[in-house]
């Protein structure tokens, strides 16, 4: 539903292209954008903070005399744009040539899905400040009502929403736009431990549609329960053990595995997955499809940041690496066909069991519920990351542990995956299920 305002933004992107070409750019792309953000924090019985703003601007890629520059501005007045684009082209001319910079092959713009991805809630505008306050208070009050809530020292609940609009044009024939909404509610809870520590935990829900948040008060209840379960946590023993990673936490580890699949990492010799295409790199239990067409998905799109039509593809098939993420620039450097350089949504081949059943199966070990700090070396695959969670004894969640650390190398670690849960995490684009590993290295006392 294009309004006059939309057409103005599209016209601005088109104007940028013609200004760039007349100022000496051989090719150009322009993306005009507008983002509206609203947020509200509610703490311990009162609104803590409200914030609301709309920002907009245009971001350009300029291809000038075999050279490349990018620029962005929010001053959209015609005379201002003209000066800015002229300055940016002069900047491009001052640097060294790069024969690999080019817009995508226009053939790759074709074949966008005709499906409605359902990324915009038509009721977005109806979720006003009053509703934000109501929902944040309800989440807060639900958390304060759980059993044992008297140990809670502080609780903050939050609501935020945004509306993102993009209009993209390139000088070699692409024109497209998209609109998407998202809603996010969360609760952060601190409680006081007998030894003076104040363990904290949180929970959240997010959705493209306001109605998709479900009963948001459950977020408050879960955040409070999660925090209270953490009272009295201790450091566990250093050992190699069975580890279950909660579906909410596991996305961080998956990102560490996927990042080195990019053509940029390969070309720059910073990928431990270089040369591994077609080889089994992880457990045969891992089959993941990258699907940009999931209705209401957080990673869903019809075209990527370059305008390339987004298509589903298999990333891992029974543990075998089936593809890399290739953008136009690094694809040209590597002589690889561009296929869109960014992950979208992951669809996992799920297991049959719930987290509870998986805990029961491992008998003894560690359930990791969140990560703290740490990092991963994409070039070598070595990683080391702080963990908190619970010991698992006799197949059930036992005492809380903290201040421990998980280390390994991705090429060994993911082969130790022995089970995948039936519970993909709905509030992220990685949609990670609970993952079970055996005999992995955890440091503690």
């Amino acid at each position: 539903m294009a309004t006059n305002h939309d057409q103005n933004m599209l016209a601005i992107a088109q104007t940028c292209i013609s200004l760039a070409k007349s100022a000496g750019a051989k090719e150009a792309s322009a993306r005009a954008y507008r983002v509206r953000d609203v947020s509200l924090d509610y703490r311990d019985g009162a609104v803590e903070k409200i914030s609301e703003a709309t920002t907009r601007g245009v971001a350009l890629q300029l291809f000038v005399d075999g050279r490349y520059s990018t620029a962005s501005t929010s001053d959209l007045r015609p005379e201002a744009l003209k000066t800015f684009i002229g300055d940016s082209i002069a900047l491009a001319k001052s640097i060294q040539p790069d024969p690999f910079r080019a817009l995508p092959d226009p053939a790759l713009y074709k074949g966008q899905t005709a499906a409605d991805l359902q990324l915009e809630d038509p009721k977005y505008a109806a979720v006003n400040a009053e509703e934000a306050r109501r929902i944040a208070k309800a989440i807060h009050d639900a958390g304060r009502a759980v059993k044992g809530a008297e140990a809670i020292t502080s609780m903050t609940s939050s609501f935020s929403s945004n509306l993102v609009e993009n209009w993209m044009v390139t000088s070699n024939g692409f024109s497209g736009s998209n609109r998407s909404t998202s809603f996010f509610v969360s609760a952060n809870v601190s409680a006081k431990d007998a030894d003076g520590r104040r363990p904290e935990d949180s929970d959240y829900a997010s959705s493209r549609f306001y109605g998709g948040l479900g009963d948001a008060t459950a977020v408050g209840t879960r955040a409070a329960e999660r925090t209270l379960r953490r009272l009295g946590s201790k450091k566990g023993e250093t050992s190699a053990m069975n580890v279950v990673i909660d579906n909410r936490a596991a996305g961080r580890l998956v990102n560490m595995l996927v990042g080195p699949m990019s053509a940029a990492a390969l070309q720059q010799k910073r990928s431990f997955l270089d040369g591994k295409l077609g080889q089994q790199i992880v457990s045969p239990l891992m089959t993941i499809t990258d699907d940009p067409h999931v209705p209401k998905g957080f990673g869903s799109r019809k075209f990527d940041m370059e305008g390339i039509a987004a298509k589903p593809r298999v990333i891992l098939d029974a543990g075998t690496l089936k593809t890399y993420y290739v953008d136009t620039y690094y694809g040209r450097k590597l002589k690889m066909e561009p296929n869109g350089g960014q992950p979208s949504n992951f669809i996992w081949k799920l297991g049959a069991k719930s987290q509870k059943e998986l805990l029961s199966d491992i008998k003894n070990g560690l359930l990791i519920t969140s990560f703290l700090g740490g990092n991963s070396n994409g070039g070598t695959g070595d990683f080391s990351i702080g963990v908190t969670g619970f010991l698992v004894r006799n197949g059930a969640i036992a005492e809380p542990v903290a201040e421990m650390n998980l280390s390994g190398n991705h090429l060994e670690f993911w082969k130790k995956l022995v089970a995948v849960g039936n519970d993909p995490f709905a509030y992220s684009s990685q949609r990670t299920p609970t993952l079970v590993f055996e005999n992995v290295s955890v440091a503690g006392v």
Partner: protein
Amino acid sequence: MEESSGLTRRTVLGAGAAALASVAMSDLFSTSSLLAETGPVPGVGYFARFGVTDKLIRDTIGAALSKGGDYADVFFQHRVTNNLNLEDGAVNRASANVGLGVGVRVLKGDQTGYGFTEDLTAEGLRRAALTAAAIADGPAKAAPVRFRVMEQKPNRYPVKIRWDDIRPQQKLSMLNGLNEKTFKTDSRVKKVSLGFMDQGSVILIADSTGRIVEDAQPMTTMYLSVVAEQDGRRENNSINRAARSDFSYYTADRLDRMAKEVVDKTVVLFDAVQPPAGEMPVVMAAGAAGILLHEAIGHGMEADFNRKNASIFSDKIGKAVAKPFVSIVDEGTQEAARGAINVDDEGNPVGRTMLVENGTLTSYLHDSISAKHYGVKPTGNGRRQGYEYAPMPRMRSTYMLPGPHKRDEIVASVKKGVFCELFSNGQVNIGAGDFTFYVKNGYLIEDGKLTKPIKDVNIIGNGPKVLELIDMVADDLKIDEGGWTCGKDGQFVPVSQGLPTVRVSSITVGGRAEKKG
């Protein structure tokens, strides 16, 4: 809260990137404008070029207080950021981003209303002010009649050569020279990439008490990254430098040292091992190891967490938390340091704050809200990423004062442990006090000597416990020149950190464990 060294990469989309294209980047640090400010000058200096007047500010603050807020302020910012990237032997990517906007904040007790706009017209400002005003619900209050300029603002980042006077060719020569130098250092080097940034940000803060102040804040960073190969194996590493300074910061000597350091720290990894896992003594090398303080105590002392009763340090002021030879400061006064500021983002003066003095917890880091809550003076820690964000208590440059021990004595004292030298990032849980930092380079210590190099290991501890376990502090304090960026609630601000050589008698090293039994 998480920290990382190196460039903060943010996509333009959703980041509120803004620009006023017709404004040239010249004048940002011109001696004819802001930095020449001496004696009483009209409140609006630099921002007059954007049509900002005393009256516009008064009207905006008036609208902000129209619903009965206790206090209101405006934060104008014009920032120009230039990046050059070198990859595969050529400076082949340039980018320019210009941001211009204003944030309006209203306080009612501890409550905050915030709005911002990139539309600097009377109507644009009024809309943002009314958005922020809605935090309150009562009769209007009056805006100040006139503004008084902050007197005796320090000059902690004097700029001799404006970035705008540096021709692109000079920057290209420097980057190409550093690239060649890095390759020449060792034949095993196969890839070098460089990221260079210069930025000028000018801010204006005015508030409902009638204060007004402008400040011009330069920043430059250089990121240098290397991949080396040996016998079919690859290792990579990176280092960076940052300063609120001008082109003269990049002396031949500094660039030479960068090339040598990044290559040394990469090729040593071919011999590196994974340290054992578990609790052991850890020696933190002088310099970047200040990340220990940033995570173990710095964030927990930010007064917003304490005001909310959510920090592990919430009831510890005046109590002994460390050995008597441990003193920890947070200050913004060191000339040209990345964490230096002449004034904070609420317009408060910036000095030195003692977090720990001779082992006793002394002061939190305050913004205006928490200072009012605790009935103390603000400490100049109210900072924000930009006009898109409300300020909150943040660190500036955090370090430990020199102690009574010697570096060699400290290393010699450890029978079996690790020595940590180069770091990439860290994070802390404020309430539980658990924190981590990630070690890129270090050594095993065996029988009092540095032996095998180690790599890629996370270290995890608990803030108050680790403070108690700091049992040796050397006399060799070094403030790191790395491009540290501190993240909190989605806002990123530049910080500095430093440390003398320090021993922690026991902390968990996240190495590789073997199955017991």
